[in-house]
């Protein structure tokens, strides 16, 4: 084991690192854009729409991502009518194939995660919104989505980390992302330990970043709950504050 080599290959992995970050960020973003409407439709009363979405999530969660990637990349490339269609200008490029497969896969998982969150929104909150005369759209925007997203956040953070690691599959369709670059360097140096340790360190760095960002987001979104806790601990002041606010309310 050559500790020196671990540090030495880090800059060589930089370009692959950028591609990994780009692929992960883009597919998570597109996946989320897909998942929000799909999760809402999935929880909507319309059974036809709901079943269509169930089929989508079932297919994409029920098959390995690698198979989906190969079907899109090598499979579509075999069909003459795909090659002569306008879509070929996109499917021709490995980058777009990877992005499409990752986004659809990530979207399927995120749809189910968000659905769980939306289902878990207390019915009392929704009834309260109805009682206040909020329209469906307003209710979704102000109550269902924020509360549902907060409930789904821990599971969603997990999915983003999984997506980061799944992006390594892009190396199988000639994209030289982090894992692909690492494998190339291994083939040149024949030192798998050192190079893969470097790559693993970069993945750990990314994961740390994702976990950190989602941790902050979680705390931010749960602010109202934290304040409630603080109040319970400092009763006397709390009462004083309550008095002030009560008098303020009455005053005008």
């Amino acid at each position, binding site marked *: 084991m050559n500790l020196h080599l671990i540090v030495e290959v880090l800059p060589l992995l930089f370009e692959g690192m950028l591609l990994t970050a780009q692929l992960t960020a883009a597919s998570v973003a597109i996946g989320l854009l897909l998942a929000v409407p799909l999760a809402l439709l999935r929880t909507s009363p319309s059974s036809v729409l709901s079943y269509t979405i169930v089929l989508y999530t079932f297919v994409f969660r029920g098959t390995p991502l690698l198979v989906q990637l190969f079907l899109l990349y*090598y499979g579509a*490339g*075999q069909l003459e009518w795909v*090659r002569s269609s306008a879509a070929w200008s996109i499917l*021709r*490029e*490995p980058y777009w194939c990877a992005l499409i497969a990752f986004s659809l896969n990530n979207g399927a998982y995120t749809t189910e995660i968000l659905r769980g969150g939306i289902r878990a929104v207390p019915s009392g909150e929704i009834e309260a919104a109805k009682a206040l005369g909020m329209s469906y759209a307003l209710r979704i925007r102000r109550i269902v989505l924020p509360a549902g997203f907060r409930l789904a956040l821990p599971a969603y953070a997990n999915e983003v980390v999984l997506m980061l690691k799944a992006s390594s599959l892009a*190396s*199988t369709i*000639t994209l*030289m992302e982090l894992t692909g670059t690492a*494998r*190339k360097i*291994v*083939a*040149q140096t*024949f030192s*798998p330990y050192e190079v893969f340790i470097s790559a693993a360190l970069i993945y750990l760095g990314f994961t740390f970043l994702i976990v950190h960002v989602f941790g902050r987001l979680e705390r931010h979104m749960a602010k109202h709950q934290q304040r409630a806790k603080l109040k319970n601990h400092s009763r006397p002041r709390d009462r004083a504050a309550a008095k002030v606010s009560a008098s303020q309310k009455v005053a005008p």
Partner: protein
Amino acid sequence: MNRFKLPLSFLLAALMFGQASAQDGKTIRIATEGAFPPWNSVDTSGKPQGFDIDVGTALCQRAKLTCEFATQAWDGIIPALNVGKFDAIMAGMSITEKRKQVIAFSKPYALTSNYFVVRKSLGLAEMASHLKVNLSSQAEEERGILQALKDALKGKIIGVQGSTNAEAFVREYFGDTVEIRTYDKQDNLNLDLVAGRIDAGLADYSVWKAFLGSKDGAMAALYGPRISGGLFGPGIGIGLRKQDKELAERFNGAIEAIEADGSLKALSLKWFGADLVSN
């Protein structure tokens, strides 16, 4: 706890027995890729087959060794040899200075002859196919041929199998004027050539022959000179651990023997339809 003791001791015995037999009975485990026809591939039941396997079997017979073939992904084939998962590599692997730094080689049992294959629909300028470029020689004429090839392929997308001499060659000689895509398997490279994602590929003649003979291969053709020497090394050899000197000796003796009696050439004709073993 008692319940676990018996199976554990069986396991230990099996492990020890396994090791002992590998040394005493000389069961040589040979790694091959299984995705590089006609050098090596796997049949429908998953068993390795091909030129490497037939040569290996003939060599082991001569050297009085018991051998077994197993498949191992190309990427990790050298590390797998060095950590002892296998005792030898026969996977159409060419002998290079770079590989010689980490493993030893037997003498070559086949030669290399690399060609570009391009899509016919590209309509590249005609280039004579009987030309030969030996990268080890510095002849003016050969450099001219290489330059002409470089000009013809300028701006094209070239596919190569990753971690091969072909990749090293394209990067060094054409890296500044072409886009390079690397594949884990030659099969996938062929698929993308047919699909039109890449314009050309570089690989050994033996590999192209199988592809060009297939239905899909009709849309592609050999292009430019035969390239050998230099980066491509003296030929295809058996990869061995550096400390296994005795095994290397036995293989070398066996290679000489099957070369002399013509059975190596017969195997080359059987798998490649051409003599890729005689100088």
